């Protein structure tokens, strides 16, 4: 919990105009925050042969799997409109793109059902079962 009193506002109405972008989740940490030439370097080199998705990143072989967002959920990519100059100021965040699925990439072997991210998608269903109202 942050000690300051600032409020973060997510402008959800911006989701309507947001782009629907293809998302890739890579099995490495890239020390970069910002735009990347995905459509020039990455997307055109992705191959989808008989349900096996392959690509290379920095010369290393990756295998991919499509992961759907849990039912009833939409994925959001948020972007800060303007970075506040002090931590007392409110922060405004808008939706820069929305997604209903993404590609999970793994090094050399395809992501399996015990992949953390793939398994994480089950949580909303489980949470609903635990916390949802009980029908009489």
């Amino acid at each position, binding site marked *: 919990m942050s000690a300051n009193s600032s409020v973060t506002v997510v402008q959800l109405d911006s989701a309507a105009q947001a782009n629907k972008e293809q998302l890739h989740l890579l099995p*490495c940490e*890239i020390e*970069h925050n910002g735009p990347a030439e995905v459509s020039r370097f990455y997307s055109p080199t992705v191959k989808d042969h008989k349900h096996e998705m392959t690509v290379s990143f920095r010369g290393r072989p990756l295998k991919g799997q499509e992961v759907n967002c849990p039912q009833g959920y939409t994925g959001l990519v948020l972007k800060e409109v303007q970075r506040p100059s002090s931590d007392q100021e409110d922060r405004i965040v808008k939706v820069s793109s929305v997604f209903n699925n993404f590609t999970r990439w793994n*090094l050399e072997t395809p992501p399996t059902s015990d992949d953390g991210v793939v398994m994480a998608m089950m949580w909303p269903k489980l949470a609903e079962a635990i916390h949802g109202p009980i029908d009489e």
Partner: protein
Amino acid sequence: MDLGEFETDNSVSCRLSSPIPDLCKNEDCCLGIDEAGRGPVLGPMVYGICFCPVSKKEDLKALKVADSKTLTETERENLFMKLDEAKSYVGWALQILSPNTISNSMLQRSKYNLNALSHDAAIGLVRYAIDSGVQLKEVFVDTVGPAEKYQEKLSQQFPGVEVTVRPKADSLFPVVSAASICAKVARDHAVKGWKFAEDLGDVDTDYGSGYPSDPKTKSWLLKYLDPVFGYPQFVRFSWSTAQTLLDTKAVTVHWDDDEEDGEKAAARQNNTSVLSYFSRKPSHGAHPREPHRFFSERKLQSVDTL
């Protein structure tokens, strides 16, 4: 030489071959192995075999095949045409190892080095010739590595075949010269007609020789460096020239199998550095409750700030 099959997908390895001459299925044959494009940081490496009946060795010699490195590109093209005209007794096959195949192999979790990759390509080609019915008796190979070990490896693979591994074999044995010409012509065509899988628009094709020492190659590598993705698949990422440029000009990428050490790496990986045991622990408030394994395994965390 038609590289159509390779060009439809130049990110993988591809085999091209001539028809097998009937004569080679009925007579004892000799076969030469050579490669082209081992050193360059750009483009594919091509392994080539060429074979003919032992009785036709002199005819092959009469075609005046020579080590491909001593010939001009036009001379190589002409000699390849001559080999094609001699198809009643000369056959060839090539294994084109795309730069992406080379990068992927060498940067695998369990590293697959260039020598092993080369040997396997050569063995695969000889196996192909035998499986296609070529009556193989003699094999001649050019080598850059230690000859004895390679000779032993090949002899074991192909019992009953006399194997000669010799440095500079491409200038000593016409059948190896012929293999070197086939390989070099394919490599030249592949580099010249390279179709970039990436969406790069009009690509500057002035990449020089492709050797790391060539200033033209170096400036091309700088021009097409992307800070996130590195290079197009035309580049062998596993070459130290490429790696060094990426280390200095591109953003750092960490993989889970990186061999990092030190406090910084430990901190990044959320491990505890041994040094942390000597520093004073922040001890305000109660100990936060560890989330259940269910959440940590799924990398799920509660977020209350952005």
